[in-house]
């Protein structure tokens, strides 16, 4: 007798990645993020770790996995910069969770949806970092240039789309 299993839509569309991809793509993003500004300081406007966090969170459609991915990448980013460890970690954990939750509800394979999501989450990250630094840590000297953050969101959205397309090839359909 044939056995039948019942899977939700989220489980059907859930995508998985091989271990090397799941490990080395975030590491490569972190490394590039550190090296590119050495070529030109303008590259510091990019946030490749955020783009990778969003990609994995949206593709996996699993909030716990999204949270973990965001937390890990964010904490590594903190450890490599002068910010206290946890600032980027908390921001990216929230973003990973929210992106994965949205991914299980809406069609995130659409390019327009991805564009909007990337733009919105980049801005959200700026707001979260500002709140963490100013409110949670009480650093009254911390400032953020909001026009620059808007520009950052636009640039990261433009850069994210080809990255998503190339990383789509690395996923394994369940």
């Amino acid at each position, binding site marked *: 007798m044939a056995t039948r299993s019942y899977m939700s839509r989220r489980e059907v569309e859930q995508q998985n990645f091989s271990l090397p991809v799941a490990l080395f793509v975030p*590491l490569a993003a*972190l*490394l590039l*993020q*550190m*090296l*590119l*500004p*050495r070529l*030109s*300081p303008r590259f*510091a*406007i990019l*946030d490749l770790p955020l783009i990778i966090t969003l990609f994995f969170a949206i593709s996996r459609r699993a*909030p*716990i996995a999204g*949270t*973990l991915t965001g*937390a890990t990448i964010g*904490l*590594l*980013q903190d*450890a*490599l*910069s*002068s*910010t*206290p*460890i*946890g*600032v980027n*970690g*908390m921001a990216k*954990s*929230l973003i990973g*969770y929210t992106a994965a*939750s949205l991914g299980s509800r809406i069609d995130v394979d659409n390019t327009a949806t991805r564009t909007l999501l990337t733009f919105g989450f980049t801005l959200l990250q700026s707001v979260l*970092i500002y709140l*963490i630094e100013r409110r*949670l*840590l*009480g*650093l009254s*000297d*911390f*400032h*953020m*240039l909001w026009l*620059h953050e808007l520009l950052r969101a636009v640039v990261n959205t433009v850069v994210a789309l080809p990255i998503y397309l190339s990383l789509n090839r690395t996923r394994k359909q369940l």
Partner: protein
Amino acid sequence: MDFLLRFRNALFLIAILLAQALALAVQVRKPVDATRQDSGSVRLIRMWTTGVIAPFERGAHAIGWGLRHGWSNYIDLRHVRQQNADLQQQITRMRMQEAAISEDALEGRRLQALLAFKEKYVASTVAAQVIGSSGSDLSHVLTIDKGSRSGIKVDQAVITPDGIVGKVRDVFPDTAEVLEINDQTSGAGVVLANTRIRAILRGTAAGRAQIGNLTADSRIKVGEPVVTSGGDQVYPRGLAVGTVESIAPDPDRQPYTAIVVHPAVDLNRVEEVLVITGMQPDLPADAQQDLAAAQSQHAADMSAERLPGLHDIDPQAANGANATPKPPTVPGAVPVLAIPHPTPVLHTDRYTVGATPPASQLTPGAPVVPQAPPAGAEQQPLHRANPMKDSAQPDATQ
């Protein structure tokens, strides 16, 4: 149990956020001091992360360095000889300038000794290459390829020949992190060079270096050099920081003024740095030798100026024209740029150079009539005609 299963995602997120909030609370205690050193566990996390990333950074840096400098270091060497000659001339000029200011330096040191002033000089440095950055415009941190094994410690100053870069923030066995002066958590004690006003230089959100603890002062002008004050116990006194780029009222902190300083070092393109690993109360031995040589050179030049008969006279200099330095004819020879010339006299007589006509024009038995003095002799200041008075001053200072 159903509650836990139903809300497991949200509960997991809350747990992760809480853990990180606790970690932040441990790191940043009240009162908030962004420049405080990390605790042991945080330092360990940073060390592990840097340990994983640093080998890749080194590899990428080595490849990039080879590509960028391979051509210029090994192939494009056409103008090296000319550059070498130019640099030799530049060194000679700088030694002459150094000799000229050596007396002022000596006088300053004597005054410092009278006041029991404790000066500190750079005793030892470690050269390092920048292999990475923090990768964010909210954080200005550089990674260098030398660490505790090379004698680098936390809070040591990092400089280039152009000026200061920052200070060592974290040290690992083979790498170290340098906090640049334009980072928001950075601070340095500085002095405005012309007005001698002391201030604190801090980084801003836009990645600029800014003085924000001064009220409006009309004496401070754009372009004024800014140097380190030495008061922060990190940077030695007198190192170049930059120049005043703009002065404007600080909208956030009235009545203070926001003085933006343009760094002397291009902080975005730093490739090689020097970490100051040691200080000492006296000048280093080689610097003392240089100073002594400059002093003796300066004394010789002063004597040469006042003893015109000891040297060949350049005809152009004798005619009052500006003497131009001749390039060395022998490769490697140090050119003599300051050609001594006789001090012009106020009253000519028959012994004055150029006053006597050539022998071919003289008539035996006829009286000698002195010719007109060389042009420009009357325009010289009076004190130039009295070398004994002038020569007494440098002797007294030595």
